[in-house]
């Protein structure tokens, strides 16, 4: 499907590319902001227990005094129960601290998104390089498999697989299931890129020089596909976060009481008019993260893969 892979300039020189990333970073404000947002949420993910300890509440700790049971468990106080004790208010019904939950929710959501992305990248690069470099039957078989996987109604299958599985770690299952349907996208990009690199002079030179196929793959091909893959991957992460949210929204996500953004949004949608704060907090977090990754991905693509590997 990649129609325009003929004239990509060699992007093998990793150091040069990173230098231009740094230059670009200094130039674009949007990029600075998005890097900051991504860093912020990444930090939140890593240090979730520490950060939520600052607020003094655990993510699973009930606070009966913060909700009014006679009003269906609506938080007491303005803005969904925002107070010195609960910085972002509380969850209706349970009175759990929203700040603690959104911080821990970031951990779960981003963990799932990153891990699923990692699976997709590893599987996609392996399949793409193999198909592109070895060609022949390997290529045919792998390409068929890609076509088949892409023909699956993926959301429907993910819902189905999540809902029938029992007695398993749901976070792990979700990572695997999301990863399962994502790899052909990367594989196609990598395959196209590999095909175009395979007959470059420097690759031919290495081959003539007696390098084995593994050595060529590792030293010449992989660095060459790295740029487009990084850009593609960054742009994929928002989709992964959104998929986690969608699955959780449909009730097949992580196991309670573990918070995730998707699960928080799913539960808070119904409260949009009675407790808007509850709905806004996870929605805004999701929005900001997706936005930041999209901007970052755009910029990385412009730098690392100017001709665009996404077709």
């Amino acid at each position: 499907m990649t129609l325009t892979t003929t004239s990509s300039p060699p992007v093998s020189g990793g150091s040069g590319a990173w230098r231009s990333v740094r230059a670009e970073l200094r130039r674009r404000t949007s990029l600075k902001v998005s890097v900051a947002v991504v860093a912020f949420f990444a930090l939140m993910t890593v240090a979730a227990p520490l950060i939520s300890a600052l607020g003094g509440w655990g993510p699973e700790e009930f606070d009966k005094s913060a909700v009014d049971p006679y009003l269906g468990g609506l938080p007491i106080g303005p803005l969904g129960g925002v107070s010195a004790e609960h910085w972002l208010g509380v969850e209706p019904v349970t009175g759990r601290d929203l700040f603690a939950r959104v911080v821990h929710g970031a951990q779960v959501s981003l963990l799932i998104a990153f891990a699923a992305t990692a699976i997709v990248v590893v599987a996609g690069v392996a399949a793409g390089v193999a198909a592109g470099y070895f060609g022949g039957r390997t290529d045919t078989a792998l390409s068929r498999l890609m076509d088949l996987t892409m023909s699956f109604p993926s959301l429907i299958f993910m819902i189905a697989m999540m809902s029938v599985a029992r007695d398993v770690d749901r976070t792990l299952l979700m990572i695997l299931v999301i990863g399962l349907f994502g790899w052909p996208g990367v594989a196609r990009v990598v395959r196209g890129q590999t095909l175009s690199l395979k007959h470059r002079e420097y690759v031919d030179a290495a081959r003539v020089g007696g390098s084995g196929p593994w050595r060529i793959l590792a030293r010449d091909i992989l660095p060459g596909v790295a740029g487009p893959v990084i850009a593609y991957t960054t742009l994929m992460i928002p989709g992964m976060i959104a998929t986690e949210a969608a699955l959780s929204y449909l009730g097949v996500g992580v196991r309670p009481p573990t918070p995730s953004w998707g699960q928080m949004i799913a539960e808070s949608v119904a409260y949009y008019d009675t407790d808007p704060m509850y709905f806004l907090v996870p929605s805004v977090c999701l929005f900001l993260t997706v936005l930041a990754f999209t901007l970052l991905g755009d910029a990385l693509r412009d730098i690392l893969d100017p001709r665009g590997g996404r077709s």
Partner: protein
Amino acid sequence: MNKRTYTLATALVTTLALGMTGCSDGKKSDGSRDRKNPATSNNGAVVGGTPQRGGTLTVLSNQDFTHLDPARNWVMPDMDFGTRLLYRTLVTYAAQPGAKGTELVPDLAEDLGTPSDGAKTWTFRLKPGLKYEDGTPITSRDIKHNVERSFSPDLPGGPDYAARYLVGGKDYRGPAEGRHLDSVKTPDDRTIVFELHTAFAEFPFAATLPTFAPVPKPRDKGPQYDSRPFSSGPYKIETYARDKQLVLVRNTHWDPGSDSVRKAYPDRIVVTMGLKGNQIDDRLIASSGADASAVSWAQLRPESISKVLTKADVKARLLAESSSCTEMVQMHTGRAPFDDLKVRQAVQYALDREAIVTAAGGPAVVDASTAAMPGALFTGGTQPDTLKIPLSGDVEKAKQLLKEAGKADGFSTRLTVSMNDKRIGEAVQESLGRAGIKVTIETVDPSAFYDTIGDTKSRTDLVYTGWCPDYPSGSTFLPFVFDGRFIKAKGNSGNHSLFKDDATIERMDEIAAMSDGAQANKAWQELDGQILAKAPVAPGASKRRTLLIGTNVAGAFGHTSWSGQLDYATVGLKDPSKSAN
């Protein structure tokens, strides 16, 4: 009635916990709490006055009916809808709010049935001149036909009282291949005789179930009868698009003179299905235009409760009749650590029922439970508190009990809840955690819930589930939930604590053999407390059925015998001209 049937009805779309529970007059006990319950002021009364004849009543629903085929209809709200509007049964419940709704009245039959042979044979005689929607007469053979249908494996899901009590029921497989059940006799067009293998004094209660409604053989299309049941009641089906819309119009062959229960006020009843629960709530709160003549099928969503209770005019249109189900934390008594009485008692003490009530929608629509049986089965309609544990639990006592059991450091265990009860599961988890019992929650899709917890080997130690009596008698509750002889390795139902106690079993047999109903009732009530002391379960909560009605709706009340569902026999409109066509 098992809660399974509710669950099947409650599609995933309804995240509101499975409804319909409570004690029929439980509102009185709420006075002792710190605030007066704001939701129950309409209980025991008819809301909106007497309706006028005519107009279109709209029912806003979030789901389709599970089954309208009378041989398969065993979901409380659906049974109310079916038997009040589409088909008549031998006997039915009076159309009265409050406790009077548990009184039986003859429907197709002339009386409540005549027992003979020590209540092993029951004879009913039909009223004269009863007709179907096409004017053909209703005969006793048609009732026999539907009873036979309920045995067919092609038509699963319905009440099994016929299968449980009729002679020869064990091996009968329905009428599809031309075989008939000899223990149901129809000596003439108006007489039907049931021969049972054991004495069953409460048979008239069973005869209110849709199994005992007529189905004319020529109209019987097997599984597809479900989409077009043939009417013997005041309305017939004009169109039925599954999961979208059901339109009922008057059955002109129904004779009001033969029917002391159904009033049939509206000309048309339109059920719109598959709407979002909170959008139904918003429409009925606003109650503008055609929505003024609408009633809700779905229960009020928890997040809408604050919008209703804070407005007096909306609150006045809320029905919150409690129904007869209780939910509890059931412990696997056959497996460590719950084979130890002290550990089970620790769970009873650690459980925070206030948190469960809040999780299920708050004290306005849920009552904390202090007994296993619902209040409706106790004298005075209120559950006694035999355990005397504070509603929010007694963590110190629980810790002490755990220490005595040699589990001073607590332990880890797992709890299965239906997806709809996720919040309740979290409340259980949090409250047991206070005593050092670390609970992992398994949420299971409602459709798979009873299969999952029915597998006694692979299931978790704890399950949160309940039971609803089929009619107001302890005999439809305690034996189902605590008789150890009915435990099955797979497909186990009711007794999810796997409680096997010889003294309890002996006592249940004694009570079942009592001929004096009042004495038996008292004995069931005492047994309830004795069982709780052995702690196979920790009482949880009892939910109410919360239904909003439009401003133009009259004659509305929640019927106690159908889990607080709106009684469709008497509901109608104040001003029919204001309704949509």
